[in-house]
């Protein structure tokens, strides 16, 4: 018997039992639609995340930090200085290494003045994807240019909505404070954190219990206070101001790759950073401890950074690079690693959804079994006739399997379409909500081809599996009994 004939007969039979068949098929449709829409959401999320990570260049960068100081042994800490950057650059696969070279500044734009942070960035670093997500304008033209790029958070600090309006604006950046009063102010409040808050963090119980902790805490607070005071005071003698032109506004940088709100070319940045003290307390502390504090401005080459970002060639695996960084005595963090974990979460999520969908389909398959068994009981005589006409057992079996297969194909196809419609409606609503909350609307769903194929295969396989037992039963119907005239 030809497959075409079988399909024709099967469709005819299902058509004849429209109500029953459509109820059974709608079960498949619902299960497949649920499966498709849920996995479509997961696929959409995964795409969004990976697309974002990738667009921001996060998948090819690694952040390098100084080893965390253990309480007992602080002497062997490898400083994250220019020498370290040289060493990092020698690691195979590393194309770029640049520090998070940041300093406190006072900025003046239009009539507003406020304190902020600026970060010096080499031209190479500025060209990486991390700093290329322009909302407006472009990057600075050279390492020496009196230009600056600001971030979205700078815009917010300023209370500006339109990034374009900032382009070409003059930005006066100054370092140092103008009076002793300001030095004191700096001592009492910095980084938006007051003295009181700092002290509230100290663990009182430990203070009572441990003299060691007490000593350490006082030492830390005292040196911090001294640093702040001195910084303010010395800064007062040394006020440096420069007028920069804003050339671009970039998207907010986040998390461990966060940059300062103001980015300046590396030479322009040197003007500020070499004249004052860096914001790194470790450095100041070491200056005080080594007695070099009252000497001339610190040698910039000995300056150490809180973090160095390295760019890795996309084709180079992260593992060996990470190992080399560790071997140099540094800690590292990469979004690529994080992303692997996120990806694992998605795999897990997909499996759970797949399982739920599968269980739903199992339930549906019981419906198919029921429909087919009933069909066979009703069509015993027909099976007898077919056998008397020369149908083989295998043909009868195939005939009924085709019938459940047709249920699967129709159900899966309609289920995929229906599931897709659900995602369209959900996406429409979600985008509406996002717009109303002034979030850039993103597409939450994705329907990759593998998902369509998987849903189709699943619907078909489950239907065929469900149809197998009834079909075998149909094949074994005794024609003599079936044809007996009652």
């Amino acid at each position: 018997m030809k497959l075409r004939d079988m399909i024709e007969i099967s469709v005819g039979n299902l058509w004849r039992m429209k109500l029953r068949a459509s109820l059974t098929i709608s079960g498949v449709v619902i299960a497949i639609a649920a499966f498709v829409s849920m996995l479509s959401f997961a696929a959409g999320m995964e795409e969004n995340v990976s697309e974002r990570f990738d667009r921001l260049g996060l998948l090819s960068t690694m952040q390098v930090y100084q080893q965390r100081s253990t309480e007992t042994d602080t002497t062997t800490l490898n400083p994250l200085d220019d020498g370290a950057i040289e060493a990092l650059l020698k690691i195979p696969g590393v194309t770029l290494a640049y520090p998070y070279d940041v300093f406190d500044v006072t900025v003046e734009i239009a009539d507003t003045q406020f304190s902020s942070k600026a970060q010096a960035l080499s031209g190479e670093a500025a060209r990486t994807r991390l700093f290329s997500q322009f909302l407006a304008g472009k990057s600075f033209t050279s390492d020496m240019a009196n230009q600056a790029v600001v971030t979205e958070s700078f815009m917010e600090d300023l209370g500006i909505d339109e990034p374009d309006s900032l382009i070409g604006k003059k930005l006066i950046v100054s370092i140092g404070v103008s009076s002793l009063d300001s030095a004191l102010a700096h001592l009492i409040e910095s980084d938006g954190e007051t003295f009181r808050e700092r002290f509230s963090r100290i663990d009182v119980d430990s203070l009572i219990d441990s003299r060691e902790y007490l000593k350490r805490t006082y030492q830390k607070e005292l040196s911090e206070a001294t640093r702040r005071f001195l910084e303010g005071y010395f800064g007062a003698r040394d006020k440096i101001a420069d007028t920069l032109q804003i050339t671009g506004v970039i998207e907010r940088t986040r998390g461990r790759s966060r940059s300062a709100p103001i980015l300046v070319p590396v030479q322009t940045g040197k003007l500020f950073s070499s004249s004052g003290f860096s914001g790194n307390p470790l450095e100041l502390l070491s200056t005080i401890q080594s007695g070099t504090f009252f000497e001339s401005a610190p040698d910039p080459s000995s300056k150490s950074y809180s973090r160095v970002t390295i760019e890795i060639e996309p084709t180079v695996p992260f593992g060996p690079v990470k190992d080399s960084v560790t071997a140099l005595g540094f800690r590292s963090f990469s979004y690529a690693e994080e992303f692997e974990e996120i990806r694992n979460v998605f795999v897990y999520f997909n499996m759970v959804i797949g399982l739920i969908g599968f269980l739903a389909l199992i339930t549906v398959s019981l419906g198919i079994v029921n429909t087919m068994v009933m069909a066979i009981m009703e069509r015993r005589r027909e099976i007898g006739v077919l056998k008397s006409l020369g149908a083989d057992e295998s043909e009868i079996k195939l005939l009924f399997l085709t019938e459940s297969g047709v249920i699967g194909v129709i159900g899966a196809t309609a289920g995929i379409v229906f599931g897709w419609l659900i995602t369209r409606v959900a996406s429409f609503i979600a985008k509406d909500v996002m717009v109303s909350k002034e979030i850039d609307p993103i597409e939450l769903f994705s329907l990759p081809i593998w998902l369509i194929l998987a849903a189709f295969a699943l619907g078909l396989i489950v239907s065929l599996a469900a149809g197998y037992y009834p079909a075998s039963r149909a094949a074994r119907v005794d024609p003599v009994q079936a044809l007996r005239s009652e």
Partner: protein
Amino acid sequence: MNSWLKTSRLCRYYRRGPQEIRAVDNVDLTVRRGEFLGVVGSSGSGKSTLLNLLAGLDTPTSGSIDFNNVTLGSLSRRELSSYRMRSVGMVFQSFNLLHYKTALENVELALYFSGTSKAVRRERAESSLETLGLSDRLDHRPSDLSGGEQQRVAIARALVKEPEILFADEPTGNLDHDNALQIAELLAKLNREGLTILLVTHNLDLAGSYCSRIITMNYGKIIDDSSGTRGV
């Protein structure tokens, strides 16, 4: 010629609890090519069982059936299906037409399993129905046909495969006198055209007037084998 369709010590037993029912019991029968064999006997005497065995629809408990020097018992399941498809035509008392299919579709159904193309199927089914005088009933469903017409559709379905032998199990049992006569006439005509027919009936008159030979069954055994009133 003598060994065309032949049974030897053919038995078909049923077990009903402790009781053994010998539906067909040690039957030695030879059906000759071209004959119109009537099988009569009271209800439950094993006529249908014998017919189903010969048609390859049932399997004997013991004994054998030979057709064209081939023992049916030695055939694979698929070969036995093929025997039913090519060599055998069957007609039943209750017609056994598919009620949801038209007359034409019912007849076409017989050609599905031989892999005949759709166009040829249609053509052969039409001509088969035409031969039986049903050309204006092609698109009627069984429920729109009279009993006699339904049985003619069933005969058309059996004949469209061009079988070598036609097994008819009480084909007139559900029909009134006139229709029964018509069907009997039809079978006799087909027999004259060369078709071998095995007709099971409990209508002795009918068997007597049309069959070339009559066997009588009782309790699964052939108790009488005559050459009938007309003789050959």
